């Protein structure tokens, strides 16, 4: 069994961090949709898509070496960053329901990673 290099973990961590900002941008851009569907093309949505592209580039760098069982669950760290930004930037309530749901999803992604060797 090969071990996972620290550099791979770092790339995936960076990827999840950048991706969470992409999600924040999409949320900001989604408010413009109240004016009509074609307002979906706006600066925030474009920035969100760009951040997702950059994030996926770091992800590919990260998963070239190392074990998916370690790296896959690290991607879902992005969900935790996003939870944090949602509270900080949009004042969303962090309920027990959200923590339990997210916890199970993280556990599930960890299992899928274990099975993807």
């Amino acid at each position, binding site marked *: 069994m090969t071990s996972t290099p620290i550099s791979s973990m770092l790339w995936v961590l960076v990827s999840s961090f950048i991706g969470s900002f992409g999600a924040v941008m*999409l949320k900001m851009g989604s408010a413009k949709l109240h004016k009509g569907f074609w307002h*979906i093309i706006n600066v925030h949505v474009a920035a*969100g898509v760009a951040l997702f592209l950059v994030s996926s580039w770091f992800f590919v760098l990260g998963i070239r070496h190392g074990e998916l069982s370690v790296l896959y669950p690290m991607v879902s760290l992005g969900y935790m960053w996003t939870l944090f930004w*949602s509270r900080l930037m949009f004042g969303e309530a962090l309920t027990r329901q959200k923590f339990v*749901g*997210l916890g199970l*999803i993280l556990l599930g992604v960890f299992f899928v990673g*274990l*099975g993807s060797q």
Partner: protein
Amino acid sequence: MSTVTTTQDQDVGSTTARQRPLLLVFCCTVLGAAAQIFLKSGANHLPHAGLIAMITSLPLMVGYALYGLSTALLVMALRDAELSLLYPVIALTYVWVTVLSFLIFHDRVNPFKLAGIATIVIGVGILGKEPKK
């Protein structure tokens, strides 16, 4: 368009107002998984990794288009719901990718993957439940 939506929301009440964004994200994850399958099959049949080859490959183009569509659905869903609620639901993509890889590429499914899929589905189910007041 926005006026139509407002009228609908008033008509159908709060349950559907909560479920509509979840349904949109659900479709978003199905399209996202389909996009990954097209990208994977496109990459498998790519003669060489040049830019022209990547732009002119039909499966890759379909994959990118599906990704675009899936992002549009996510933005539409985010308009009416909390980011902290919707974003983790995207993990359903793992479920569809595992199922589709099994059906199309005959990738092996093992107990770990099955347990993972089941746990993700339960987690999403909990997020989708109406919170107790």
